[in-house]
């Protein structure tokens, strides 16, 4: 049996010594608690800051946007090397001195400096701030000269959007900095935050944005509590944006843009079988490059306050009464509905009185006795008043819709307007009033409530020219259209190829059904009659566009002029015979022209609109003539490119 040796004295000794240990423990507890107070309460702020800095640093960079090319591979929107200056606030020794020095070197405005300071405050100190995203070479070299004194700034060579031609500013659109609205509307932008990121704002840049923008790349660094990069953890190069080939012809774009110089208006050209938009030009144009790096307030104000609204793509957003260009459609509608026949004769004495109102023909002396062909050829208004009266607005509007008016046709262009195809129901709903018969008469010559875009007129002409089939426009190669759906199905590719190479392509026989197109006619003779009348209007003496004809057989085209009034002409003004040029600019007539070419084997349709340009024969038709000539000269080249395609991808 082992028992306690030493007894109570030993136990007392243990107790005494334990007391000393307890005292020592108390000291240690005070030490630990003191340290906790010092770290977590007194110095907590400092450590919180350190902890915040204590992260992985990520440097994200914007990928190069995809390139937009024309049909022949010419780059319309591409990328160029730019010199940028980035500033990393936490690397700067003294931020305010640094900014002051940069301000002097780059001669920045106070406004620009305060913007940068604001940006610095809004983000983490290790996130780079772009001081300038497009330095000139002189500025870039000056920065490099002083670089050793400018700790915290980094000159960077990057890529940015560049538009070489201003002829396509509207159809291509432009890119600019991401706005709050963009973030709300484009979900894919949520993962796209990167310095220097640009987003498509209008035109194709906007339409194709989600694909053309690419994927953001990043470099991730592990950094320590002192902000020093320890190592690169991961790198992701991102993905370049997808490039696109379009159906546009840059050379025609340039020519068209030049022809519209100092005028306000637009030119559209379309392939009548494939629906390929070859030209879409609006004038006056603007420099889209200004938006890439942030447009100055002065330039912006200039664009916004310009009388002719350079930013508006008039080809799809400009709304004009179609004027006489609609007469072909009115004729088709009347013939298809068996309201009249081509033989109907009407006497034109310069005006006609109906429903207690006087309706005037453009030709004061009148056309005498006219049949339908002559009425189209010489654009007799009185004849079409009578046709419209018999036809009625509702049947006319039905035909107009079938031929592409009153709806958006170019997919994905948010700026496209639908226009107005008036009828009784529309008026009741939109204006709240009943339809007057007199309004039907005005509508018969393309005045009144009509609102059409030049692109719609071009499409309408294409649908007439191709024999009355519902071709749809497209602008991006490989994009789905009825035509490409057919190609995918490969139902009858051989006959398709044959069809486009054959002489019969203007005659749209049974093969056209295979194209997936729906005929818009009951009797194709009616369509052909109008086509033939258009030929007369351009190629026979007395025709409204006879002066603009091309006499070489393979270039011969057929078209219809239009002069649309923007004001009501009073009786007094008629008496005075005021010339259009003598009117104030805003009151002058719009000049319109639609045509298809070549007449023998139609391939293309065109529409030209010149705002306040006077009569269609005087201004629009001569422009169309020049475009058609170039278009037909370039046709073999286009055909060659088409034949070399293996599938319609880029």
């Amino acid at each position: 049996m082992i028992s306690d040796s030493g007894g109570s004295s030993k136990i007392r000794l243990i107790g005494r010594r334990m007391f000393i240990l307890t005292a020592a423990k108390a000291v240690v507890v005070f030490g630990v608690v003191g340290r906790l107070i010092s770290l977590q309460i007194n110095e907590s702020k400092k450590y919180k800051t350190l902890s915040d800095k204590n992260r992985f640093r990520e440097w994200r960079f914007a990928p190069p946007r995809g390139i937009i090319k024309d049909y022949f591979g010419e780059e319309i929107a591409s990328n160029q090397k730019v010199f940028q200056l980035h500033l990393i606030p936490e690397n700067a020794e003294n931020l305010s001195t640094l900014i002051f020095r940069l301000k002097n070197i780059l001669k920045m405005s106070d406004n620009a400096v305060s913007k940068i300071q604001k940006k610095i405050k809004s983000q983490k100190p290790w996130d780079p701030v772009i001081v300038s995203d497009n330095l000139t070479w002189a500025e870039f070299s000056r920065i490099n000269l002083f670089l050793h004194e400018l700790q915290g700034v980094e000159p960077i060579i990057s890529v940015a959007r560049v538009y070489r031609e201003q002829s396509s500013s509207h159809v291509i659109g432009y890119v600019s900095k991401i706005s709050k609205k963009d973030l709300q509307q484009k979900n894919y932008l949520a993962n796209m935050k990167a310095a220097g990121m640009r987003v498509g704002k209008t035109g194709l840049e906007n339409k194709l944005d989600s694909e053309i923008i690419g994927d953001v790349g990043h470099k991730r660094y592990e950094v320590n509590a002192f902000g020093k990069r320890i190592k690169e953890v991961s790198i992701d190069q991102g993905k370049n944006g997808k490039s696109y080939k379009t159906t546009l012809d840059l050379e025609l774009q340039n020519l068209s843009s030049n022809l519209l110089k100092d005028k306000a208006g637009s030119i559209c050209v379309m392939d009548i079988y494939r629906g390929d938009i070859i030209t879409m030009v609006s004038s006056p144009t603007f420099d889209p490059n200004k938006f890439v790096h942030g447009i100055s307030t002065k330039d912006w104000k200039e664009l916004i306050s310009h009388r002719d609204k350079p930013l508006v793509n008039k080809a799809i957003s400009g709304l004009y009464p179609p004027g006489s260009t609609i007469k072909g459609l009115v004729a088709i509608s009347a013939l298809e509905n068996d309201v009249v026949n081509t033989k109907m004769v009407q006497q034109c004495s310069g005006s006609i009185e109906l429903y207690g109102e006087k309706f005037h023909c453009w030709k004061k002396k009148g056309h005498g006795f006219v049949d339908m062909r002559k009425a189209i050829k010489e654009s007799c208004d009185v004849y079409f008043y009578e046709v419209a009266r018999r036809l009625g607005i509702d049947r006319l509007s039905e035909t107009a819709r079938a031929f592409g008016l009153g709806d958006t046709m170019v997919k994905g262009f948010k700026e496209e307007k639908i226009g107005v195809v008036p009828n009784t129901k529309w008026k009741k709903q939109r204006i709240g009033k009943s339809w007057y018969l007199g309004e039907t008469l005005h509508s018969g010559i393309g005045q009144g409530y009509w609102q059409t875009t030049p692109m719609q007129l071009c499409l309408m002409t294409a649908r007439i020219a191709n024999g009355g089939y519902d071709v749809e426009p497209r602008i991006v190669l490989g994009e789905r259209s009825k035509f490409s759906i057919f190609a995918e199905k490969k139902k009858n590719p051989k006959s398709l190829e044959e069809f486009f190479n054959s002489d019969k392509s203007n005659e749209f026989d049974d093969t056209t059904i295979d194209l997936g197109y729906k005929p818009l006619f009951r009797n194709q003779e009616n369509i052909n009659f109008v086509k033939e009348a258009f030929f007369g209007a351009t190629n026979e003496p007395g025709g409204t566009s006879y002066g603009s004809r091309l006499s070489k057989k393979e270039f011969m085209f057929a078209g219809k002029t239009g002069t649309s009034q923007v004001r009501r002409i009073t009786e007094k003004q008629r008496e005075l015979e005021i010339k259009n040029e003598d009117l104030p600019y805003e009151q002058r007539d719009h000049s319109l022209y639609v045509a298809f070419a070549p007449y023998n084997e139609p391939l293309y349709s065109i529409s030209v609109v010149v705002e306040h340009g006077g009569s269609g024969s005087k201004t629009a038709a001569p422009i169309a003539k020049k475009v058609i000539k170039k278009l037909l000269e370039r046709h073999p080249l286009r055909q060659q490119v088409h034949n070399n395609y293996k599938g319609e991808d880029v």
Partner: protein
Amino acid sequence: MFRSGSIQSHLTLRDKIFSLDLTLTICIFLIGIISFFAMYSTDGGQFAYHTKSHIIRFIIFFTLFFVISFIKTSFWYGSATLFYLGVLFLLILVKYVGLTSSGSQRWLDLYFLNLQPSELMKIGLILFLAKYYHKISSGDVNKFRYLAQPLLALLFPVILVITQPDLGTSFLIAVGGVIVVWLAGVKMKFFAYLGGLFLLSAPVAISFLKPYQKSRILTFIDPSRDPLGAGYQITQSKIAIGSGGLFGKGFLDGSQSYLDYLPEKHTDFIFTLFSEEFGFFGSMTILMIYILITWRIVNIGHTLRTSFGKLYCYSFATAFFIYVAVNMGMVLGLIPIVGAPLPIMSYGGSSMMAIMIGLGIVMSCKIHKDQSLG
């Protein structure tokens, strides 16, 4: 009270349960619960490997704690020497068949768990020395013959553990032993001699240190010396704790820990993680629970009548306190990083097992205080 109750020869299980120290048991349980949350957070807010395994271990060893409590103190007294020798044998075994991890050979592969005998030695040595001083009379304590045996019993395992190498654990084993010797009444001068000897041998000892160990000590003296290397842990731990502030960043929101800035967050730096997420109030709560545990053990020691019981309880309480203090001092940047787990909180089976055995014996002393050791 003294000697009022007769020496009971038999206690029913019911008696034993009722005589458990409730405060101590609850405190242990509380630490266990807190450790689950902390572990869950280190797993990135998922019920993953470390959390599961920690909970299972706690359940097993908490049960072990009760089992040990209910076994008579005389059994533990009787098997103290055997326990010590057994652990010593395991320590020698580790030298030959131990598992090596990050350059240190510390573990025995027991298939169901990797046993770290050095952790058990923390208890083994205290138990052995408490029994030793229980047996000899107070007059003999300072005799040279009776000094040599405890010194050898202390140095042998400490040297074995140092050469594993495991500086932290060997230090904690030594501290536990020295406390028993001190409480037993060994004169101050011997401690002075020992201290002097230690200082003299220090240069020699340093030459034996591994480069990383030297670097740790140097870095402690000047953390900014190498902020990306050895000073990294101290700096990061201080940032984590400091950034926790008064109320912490919130459960599962410790950015330091989540971004992997905290080294060994499961084990030695578990307190850092908890402090970051629960702030000053969280840290103080844990500290207070540990102090409460220590205080209860000392209190139990007060009620005991045998010098074995008193020596064991006082020493274990002090050692337990020192484990806590060393771990906290380390993560707070007060002392060099030595690798000492926080009792029960830290992930690690052997450490938890040792602590639970130690606490179990304390509780056994309390339950069986009126029974003789014989």
